[in-house]
């Protein structure tokens, strides 16, 4: 690439994935959309710090994760005890579910919410978005071994929550 695309073009290209990442982190869709929007604004303000030739998606995901830690996460924490108990119960393993049973977004978001935050962000990057371990470790600024062990614990917890399905 010879020159960076305008910010709007870069953002438009990654925006659907950024919203998906935000949904994987946040408690509900309203928080997720706030998070994606705040990440976009913060990225725009610091676009001069983006290095052309590096990955814009990694860069803005990293910003999104920082915003989540700084703001939305504390908002979710404050509201956590208000979550209706049936939301958790509905996550129980359904013995009738077929092996290929699809789960809906609400169920997936609720399951992600029950993961510890450090596992949730790793699962969101690697399992939901498809980043490699190394890219995820760079986004999170953590050693690859830490990412790998958190991913193991996160996916084991999710399998327990979402049903083993055969």
């Amino acid at each position, binding site marked *: 690439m*010879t020159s960076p695309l305008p910010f709007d073009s870069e953002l*438009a290209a990654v925006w659907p994935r950024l919203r998906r990442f935000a949904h994987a982190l946040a408690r509900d869709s309203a928080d997720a959309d706030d998070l994606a929007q705040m990440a976009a604004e913060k990225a725009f303000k610091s676009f001069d710090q983006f290095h052309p030739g590096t990955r814009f998606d990694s860069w803005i995901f990293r910003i999104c994760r920082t915003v989540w830690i700084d703001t939305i996460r504390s908002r979710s924490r404050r509201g956590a005890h208000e979550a209706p108990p049936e939301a958790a119960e509905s996550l129980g393993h359904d013995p009738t579910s077929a092996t290929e049973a699809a789960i809906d977004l609400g169920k997936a978001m609720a399951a992600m919410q029950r993961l510890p935050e450090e596992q949730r962000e790793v699962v969101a990057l690697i399992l939901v978005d*498809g980043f490699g*371990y190394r890219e995820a470790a760079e986004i999170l600024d953590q050693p690859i*071994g830490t990412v790998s062990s958190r991913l*193991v614990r996160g996916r084991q917890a999710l399998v327990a929550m979402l049903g083993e399905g055969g």
Partner: protein
Amino acid sequence: MNEEELFFAWLDGELEGDEAARVAAQVASDPALQAKAEQHRRLAAQLRGAFDPILKQDVPPSKFGSANVLDFQAQRSEREIRRSSFGVPQWAAMAATLAIGIVAGQFVSNRSGAPIESRDGMLVAAASLDRALDAQLASAEGNGRVRVGLTFRTRAGGICRSFTDDGATGLACREGQDWKVEGLFAAPEGQQGDYRMAAGEDPRLAALIDERIAGEPFDAAAEKAALDNGWR
């Protein structure tokens, strides 16, 4: 990494060479590990399937404004414009903000009847091109020389249509009551005047569409509905 982490790293395609081969052999000889691999592949597919609808939602990002930043294609186009015989500085300035490839002299003009004209600092469709974009469906075989290709909703919520007209292909987007021309490219050599050329075939045009489109292009019914609704 411990054995558990190695297993999952293998599952995620993160291992290479001997290490990958060793875990693969281990899994192949152990039905319990095979079942576990299957279980976790399913989990990953379930998760992706659950979050995938977000990707398809038509929620456009905010526009932060980047008109002062040229993309590569626009820069190249600007050079082409400068080399051309236009000699009208305002065209060069305008073209710099657009993805205009080679603009034929007869195309853009303020003389009456030209298909594209300058208005309020924008290039807008006029005459036959404006009429076709307003009223013509992609399915129309019409006698006119303008053919309309794809119609689609942009991420910003507007509507754009691609067109082919007299050896050029381009993209126009609804702006109030006008069709603002956001790209115009000369047809490849040898296809000049070939009205059957599908709009959207030109890779430069395809790139413009890719940058803007939200979801899929309109089908015939959606296109008709958009026409009836005044392209809003």
